């Protein structure tokens, strides 16, 4: 198995971001599509995986595979240790206070559903309110709607302006004694807007309201310190930060998690079971019923190691330059309009074109080997807000280059050729 020591530091010594070196770590970037070099600009949907992540998953099945927290045999002990080591890596990565606050889940969606089901059962009732924003992904809307339907609570939505920024004054107006939870995205998946979460959390806390942050689109682009943010819950997925699918994390403040009832019942989450009564296990295991996704957790650990090998100010700077460049050259194309022009953005360029539907643009770009997402991006209310059915979304990762953005621009000129 690879450990962080075995991974070469990629940029710490050189003090500049060597994207060509980075690209070598991602085998899929050598694929061709329709006879062209793959240009992968769908990173907000899922990122590609470096060699070390692929090797870690492979290595787990080759050398470690066994069930955790159960056996007295050597493999089970080693697998348990490897699994719990990843929890500690993630604790450090988020600067959480304790590994008790790091709950493994399938991904962001499950993390939010866990809070809706468990915190919801504990704290939300008829007449209460949940506050979200107008730029949420469906996974940060639907669980709250379901909770409201079950409890008689009401879902409130802080609107966004024409740039795609949350209107802070409206957000503040919607906070009241009825508000039991605020749930908001750190970064919008459809528009790329970076919400001022730290100050929004502070405002919510002044009213005594806990805050859940959907961090799925934030973790690939900048480092997150949950104690600095002071968020009460933070949800994210490994697969959007160069790790495997099917594994993610719910961070929660210990006091809240301890007070909350279990989400699912089963093995591993119990201390003792009789037919009359079950005593639940301590955190974090209370929320991890059943055999977890061990292999992908190990892969997740390798992704964290990979990200830790970078100087983050270089990554963030490189990605910022890339987005600024893309905004400039794509935005200059006549008949094309960028959707989402917030002052602070990360990783996402959404656009529409006169007279050509995003779906047609997506097909034509695909023929050029360029992978973008087209559609409503699981954020239909955002599309409704802008009065459009869909957008084309190019989203960037740390292996994308200016040359790839130039190819995107040429691809868009093909769209114009076809639709003359």
């Amino acid at each position, binding site marked *: 198995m690879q450990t962080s020591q075995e991974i070469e530091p990629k940029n710490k010594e050189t003090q500049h971001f060597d994207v060509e070196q980075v690209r070598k770590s991602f085998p899929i970037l050598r694929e061709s599509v*329709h006879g062209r070099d793959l240009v992968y600009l769908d990173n907000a949907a899922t990122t590609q995986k470096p060699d070390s992540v692929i090797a870690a998953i492979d290595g787990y099945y080759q050398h470690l595979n066994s069930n955790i927290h159960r056996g007295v045999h050597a493999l089970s002990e080693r697998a348990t240790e490897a699994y719990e080591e990843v929890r500690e890596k993630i604790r450090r990565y988020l600067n959480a206070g304790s590994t008790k606050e790091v709950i493994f889940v399938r991904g962001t969606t499950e993390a939010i559903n866990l809070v809706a089901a468990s915190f919801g059962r504990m704290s939300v009732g008829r007449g209460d309110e949940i506050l979200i924003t107008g730029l949420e992904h469906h996974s940060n809307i639907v669980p709250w709607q379901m909770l409201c339907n079950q409890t008689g609570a009401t879902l409130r939505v802080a609107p966004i302006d024409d740039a795609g920024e949350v209107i802070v004054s409206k957000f503040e107006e919607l906070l009241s004694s009825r508000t039991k939870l605020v749930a908001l995205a750190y970064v919008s998946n459809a528009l790329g807007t970076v919400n001022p979460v730290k100050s929004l959390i502070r405002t919510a806390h002044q009213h005594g309201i806990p805050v859940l942050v959907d961090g799925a689109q934030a973790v690939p682009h900048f480092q997150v310190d949950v104690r600095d943010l002071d968020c009460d819950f933070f949800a994210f997925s490994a697969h959007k930060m160069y790790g495997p699918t099917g594994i993610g994390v719910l961070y929660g403040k210990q006091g809240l998690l301890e007070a909350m009832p279990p989400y699912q019942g089963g093995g591993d989450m119990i201390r003792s079971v009789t037919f009359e009564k079950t005593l639940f296990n301590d955190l974090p295991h209370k929320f991890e019923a059943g055999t977890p996704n061990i292999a992908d957790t190990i892969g997740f650990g390798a992704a964290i190691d990979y990200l830790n090998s970078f100087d983050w100010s270089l990554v963030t700077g490189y990605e910022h330059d890339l987005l600024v460049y893309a905004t400039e050259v794509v935005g200059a194309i006549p008949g094309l309009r960028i959707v989402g022009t917030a002052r602070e953005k990360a990783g996402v360029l959404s656009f529409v074109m006169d*007279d*050509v*539907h*995003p*779906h*047609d643009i997506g*097909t*034509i770009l695909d*023929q050029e080997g360029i992978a973008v997402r*087209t*559609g*409503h991006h699981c954020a*239909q209310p955002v*599309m409704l807000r802008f009065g459009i*059915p*869909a957008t084309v979304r190019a989203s960037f990762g740390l292996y994308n280059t200016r040359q790839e953005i130039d190819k995107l621009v040429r691809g868009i000129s*093909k769209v114009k*050729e*076809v*639709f*003359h």
Partner: protein
Amino acid sequence: MSELRSLYQEIILDHNKKPRNFGKLDGATRTLEGYNPLCGDHYTIYLKVENGIIADIAFEGAGCAISKASASVMTTLVKGKTPEEAQELFGAFHRLVTGELKDVSFESLGKLAAFAGVSEFPARVKCASLAWHTMKNALEAKTEAVSTE
């Protein structure tokens, strides 16, 4: 470009730009919505069936070029036909876009042949089929909106 040209034929681009029978239809005897939740294509099909004939048909809504051109061409083809003939056309169209009609001479298909290229783009079959499915269900007097998912 050749694959793209086979998808985006002139006739498709033309019907996308200038859709025929586009708008509401007064006196429609059947009205049904169809949508593709993944890409947001959304159309309403209006049919006027009189004396066993599709006396008139129209559509309105929005979507990609393939879905709009397909709806437009469909209206020109089924107008004046019996519901049975329209069902046959639906069958031919469905086999064409799913690649089951490879050996048939395209001349016999008339304007439908423009959609043969769709079969090379599996992700776009739903776009091409949306209006046709909606028309079929409307003919069968179904009232629930058609969804391609």
